[in-house]
C-alpha cells in the first residue's frame, strides 16, 4: 500500500513538473555522454596498446649509402659488421631481453614500404637502395628499450636504433588529451546537472507543500514524505544515463564498427559490446548524483 502510494506520488510529481524533468533528463544525458566518451577513449587506447605493443618492435637500422650518422663514417654496413651484430643479438647478455629478432633486407624493407604506402604516390619515387636494412627485435619487455639502444647505437655499421613504441605514444597522448577534454566538459555539465536537479526538486517540493504539510501533520514518516521527491530526481537522471549509454553504444556500433573500421581496417576498434561495460557505471553515477543532490536540497527546503 505504502509502495503503491509512493509510486503514485512519484507519477504525479513527474507529470506536474514535466518540463523540468525533461531538462534534467537532457542535461544528465549530455553530461554522462561526455563521461562515457572519455571512458570509451581510454578503452580505445588500451585496446590499441594491446594490439600494437605486440607487433611494435625496436628497429636497428644499418648504415646504407646515404647515411650521415657518426657510426656510418666508414660507409655502408659490411657483411662482417652485420655478422657481428647478429652475434651480439644472440649473445646471452642481449638475448635475455628479447623474444626473437629478424633481419630485414633492403628488398624486404622496400616491399613493406610499398604495402604501407600503397595509396601514396611516394612509392613510385622510392627505390630499394634508399631504404636501410634493419634488425627487427621483438622485446620481452618493451620498457627495456634503453638497454638495446645503449648496446647497439655505438656499434659500427649501426645508423640508429628506434623504438617504434614512441611513435605510438604520440598518438596515445593525443587521445589522452581528447579524453581529458571530454572529462572537463563532463565535469562542467555534471555541475549543471546537479544544480538543475536541485532546482527541480525545490520546485517540486514547493508545488506540493500542501500535501507534504498534511503528511507531516498526520504523522507520515520522513521516508514516505521525502522518497517520492528523491526518486523523481533519480528516475530522471537514470533515464538520462540510459540515453547516454544508448548513444555510446550507437557510436561504437555504427561509427566505429561500420564506418571507421572500414576506413582503417588494420586498426582494432573497441566493439559496441565493450561499451556496455560503461552503462552500469553511468547509471549508478547518474542515479547517485541525483539522489545526493535531491537529498541535500530536501534537507533545506522540506522540513519534516
Amino acid at each position: 500500500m505504502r509502495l503503491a502510494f509512493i509510486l503514485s506520488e512519484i507519477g504525479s510529481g513527474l507529470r506536474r513538473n514535466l518540463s523540468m524533468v525533461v531538462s534534467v533528463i537532457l542535461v544528465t544525458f549530455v553530461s554522462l555522454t561526455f563521461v562515457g566518451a572519455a571512458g570509451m577513449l581510454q578503452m580505445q587506447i588500451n585496446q590499441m596498446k594491446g594490439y600494437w605493443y605486440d607487433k611494435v618492435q625496436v628497429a636497428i637500422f644499418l648504415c646504407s649509402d646515404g647515411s650521415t650518422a657518426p657510426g656510418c663514417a666508414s660507409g655502408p654496413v659490411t657483411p662482417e659488421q652485420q655478422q657481428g651484430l647478429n652475434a651480439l643479438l644472440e649473445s646471452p647478455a642481449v638475448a635475455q631481453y628479447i623474444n626473437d629478432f629478424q633481419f630485414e633486407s633492403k628488398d624486404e624493407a622496400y616491399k613493406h614500404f610499398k604495402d604501407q604506402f600503397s595509396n601514396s604516390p611516394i612509392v613510385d619515387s622510392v627505390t630499394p637502395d634508399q631504404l636501410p636494412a634493419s634488425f627487427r627485435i621483438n622485446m620481452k619487455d618493451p620498457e627495456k628499450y634503453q638497454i638495446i639502444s645503449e648496446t647497439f647505437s655505438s656499434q659500427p655499421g649501426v645508423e640508429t636504433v628506434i623504438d617504434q613504441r614512441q611513435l605510438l605514444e604520440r598518438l596515445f597522448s593525443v587521445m589522452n588529451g581528447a579524453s581529458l577534454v571530454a572529462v572537463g566538459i563532463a565535469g562542467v555539465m555534471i555541475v549543471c546537472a546537479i544544480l538543475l536537479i536541485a532546482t527541480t526538486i525545490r520546485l517540486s517540493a514547493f508545488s506540493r507543500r500542501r500535501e507534504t504539510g498534511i503528511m507531516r501533520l498526520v504523522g507520515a514518516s520522513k521516508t514516505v514524505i521525502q522518497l517520492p521527491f528523491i526518486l523523481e530526481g533519480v528516475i530522471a537522471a537514470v533515464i538520462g544515463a540510459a540515453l547516454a549509454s544508448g548513444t555510446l553504444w550507437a557510436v561504437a556500433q555504427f561509427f566505429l564498427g561500420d564506418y571507421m573500421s572500414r576506413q582503417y581496417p588494420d586498426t582494432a576498434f573497441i566493439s559496441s559490446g565493450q561499451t556496455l561495460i560503461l552503462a552500469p557505471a553511468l547509471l549508478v553515477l547518474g542515479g547517485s548524483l541525483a539522489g545526493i543532490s535531491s537529498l541535500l536540497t530536501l534537507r533545506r527546503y522540506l522540513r519534516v
Partner: protein
Amino acid sequence: MIRFENVTKVYDQKARPALDAINLEIDRGEFAFLVGASGSGKSTFLRLVLKEDRATSGAVYVAGQNVAKISSWRVPRLRRGIGVVFQDFRLLPQKNVFANVAFAMQVIGKSRSVIRDTVPEVLKTVGLEGKEHRMPHELSGGEQQRVAIARAVVNRPGILLADEPTGNLDPTTSMGIMGVLDKINQNGTTVVMATHDDDIVNEMRKRVVELKNGVVIRDEARALYTSMIPVVGQSRRLKDASGRETPDAGLPGNAAEGEAQR
C-alpha cells in the same frame, strides 16, 4: 494527556517570551478552550504540543512522554496520536472528499481495505455521508471544515488540536462544527481548541484557559469566554454574522485588535 511544566518559549531574545513559565494540565477526555488575544501564545502552545518547536525551557508532556526526549525519527509517531484542524481547512483541492480523508491513512501505510471501511464511517461521524465524491470547491465552508476534522480524526488520535476551526465560518455553521467536535470528544478524544469565538465558548460551557502575553491568567471549568470576575479593560462591540451588534463585556486588556471582524 497534555502537561506543561514551567514551559517558556522565546522566539526572539529581545522580545518578551511567547510563553512565560506556563504550568497547565489537560486530562484525558477533556474539552478545553484556549482563548486570548493574538500573540497571547495560543498558537505557540499548539506548536509545542506537536513538537513543531522546542520549548526554550521547561518540559512538555504529551500522553505521558516528554516531547523533548522524542528523537526526530519518532516525531511522526507522536503526530499520529494528535489530530489537527485549522481555520483555513487545508484540504487538497484536486482530491475529492473521500481521497482527502483517505490521504491521511495512505501516508501512514494503512491498507486499502481498512481505508475503504474506515473513511465512510468517519465521514458519517462528521455528518458528510453521501458526499464522498464531491470536490472541496463544491462544498460549503462548514462542510470543508468537516472534511478537515474527518481527516484529523480518521487515524483515531488521542488528542485533537483545533486552531480557530470556526474562524472562517458563520455562527450557525460554527455551532454545527462544535457539535462534531463535541461528539468526537464524547468518544474519548481530548480536544484543545484555540478560539476567538465568544458565542461558541459561552454556548459550550467547557473548561476555558485564557492566555495573555504568554501567561495563563485564567483557568476555569465550565466557564464563559470572558471572566465572571470583571477585568478592567476597554469594552468593545462585536458584530455577529447576522449583522446585529451585540454589546460585549470586552476582552481583558487591550485584546484582539481587528479580530472582532468575522
